[in-house]
Every structure is written in C-alpha cells, then in structure tokens.
C-alpha cells in the first residue's frame, strides 16, 4: 500500500523555517498569511500498513519535537 507520512514541528516549538516563510510572503505581496510551519513528507510503499505508527515512533519522526500524520492508500 502506498502511504504518506507528514511530519511537522510540534506546536509550541519555535519553527524558524516557518517564521522565515511567514516573513517572506508579505514581502512578495501575499498578505493575510499566518501560522506557517515547514515539515517534511515521506512517501513509502508498505506491505503492512499496521506497522506505520511504530515506524513513525521509532524512526520517521522524533515524537518529542515532531507530530506526524499517516495518510494511507494515497
């Protein structure tokens, strides 16, 4: 099964990449942008999707500093 894992900085932890993007957009004329966060997208084919949460906990994300979201069958 094709799956996607979205990994984001945990809420409340300063995300300098998000801040940089948020500052850059108005400079290009895009107003009304807030709460920008930059994370990463991991795409993978898995035989057993039930293992995805453990994969996230152990390797794909660091649960102390990152939240993850699993999207199956994409």
């Amino acid at each position, binding site marked *: 099964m094709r799956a996607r894992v979205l990994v984001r*900085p945990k809420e409340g*932890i*300063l995300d*300098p*990449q998000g801040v*940089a993007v948020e500052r850059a957009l108005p400079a290009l004329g895009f107003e009304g942008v807030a709460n920008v966060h930059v994370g990463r997208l991991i795409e993978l084919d898995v035989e057993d999707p039930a293992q995805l949460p453990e994969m996230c906990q152990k*390797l*794909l994300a*660091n649960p*102390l*500093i990152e939240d993850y979201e699993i999207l199956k069958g994409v």
Partner: protein
Amino acid sequence: MKFGVIRFPDSCDEVDALLACERVPGATAELLWHGDRDLHGADAVVVPGGFSYGDDLRVDAIARFSPVMESVISFSREGGLVLGICNGFQVLCEAGLLPGALLPNVELRFICRQVDVHVVQADGPFPGECSAGEILSIPVKHTTGRYYAPPDVLQSLDAHGQIVLTTPPDGNPNGSTNDIAGVRKDAGNVFGLMPHPEHAVDELTGSTDGLKIFESMAARAHA
C-alpha cells in the same frame, strides 16, 4: 585508563577526539567502528561530532541503531562514562540516553566560533576537574544545536542539577532553551554538549580548556 572513540560513517571529529583523549596523562585511546559491538575494553566512551550517516532523514536518527550503540547503551546502564560531543550529543538524545532533542539553530545558519561556556555543575564525573562558575573557552560548530526539552523535563533537569553547561544569554549561539549547552543523565555518567572540547586542547588553537572535560572522565573512569 583507556578511552574508546566511536567512528560512524561520516564522523569527522573522531581523530581530534582521539588525540584529545591521548593528551590526558596516563590515558590511551582507540577508535571503535560503528559496526563492531565490542568496545575493546574501553573504560570510557566518546561519541564524537560529525554527520553520522550523513544526517540522513534527521540529524542522528540513524546512528542510534548501529551495533556499537547497543553496546554503548548497555555500558552506560552499568554506570560507564559516556561523552557525546555535538553530533554525538544528538545521537545520545535520539538513543534516549539523555533527555531532550537538538533543533536547527534559530538563525538557520551554520555557526563556527569560540564561545564562553559557563560551568553550572562541577560535581560528579562531568566535569569534575572544573569548578562551578568557571568559564571555558571552547568552539562550537553546528547547524542543529538548539537544545530543546519540554517544560516538565526542563524543570526536572534543573531540580536534579543536570544542566551542566550554559552559554551567556547574550552569547547563546543557537537559541537553545535556557541557554543550555550541555546536560547529563540523572545518574551523572552520561554527558552531552554542543561545544567541541576536543578542538580546545592546544594553545596553538587558542585554548586548552577542553582538555579538562577529558581529564574529568579519566579521573572518574573505572580503570
């Protein structure tokens, strides 16, 4: 006593760490390959800086699963002294040997400069050869050095005297929480820091303050 210095693929400071260890009177040092579970009789272990496994995925996500790290984790549980420098600090955090995590520097830039590091705690093996309040001149060189721990963990670190090193608030190079530059495990035998003591062991490069970290280890290691 004998130091073991781990070499991961893409480590880059292991030779400087080895040479720093060898400068400690009465000490020998040996490189330990990441694929080898045998610590070769080391009395203390150094996890050096670099870009272990190319920092693939996330800084140090992979290194903690290497065979040698299994042995380092067992060694630390038996009370063995383990020092993690920079990338090695990140490895120890990812391995769960130290609390917290390292995030990208607040300015998102690579920093390479000498910093004044304040010794907050000087009891125990790390860094027993220093005095509390002492200032060490040691270089930092990193992109991912912003120490972070959740508020409850920070409170516990503070209460148990686990915050060993800080940088002055006006000289914090990476935006770390509470200006933290180095923390230790509650048992005191595992210590991680972002500055590089192995690059401050010779007057030629401006400071020998880093040598005290290695001397502290040698003084307390079970020889």
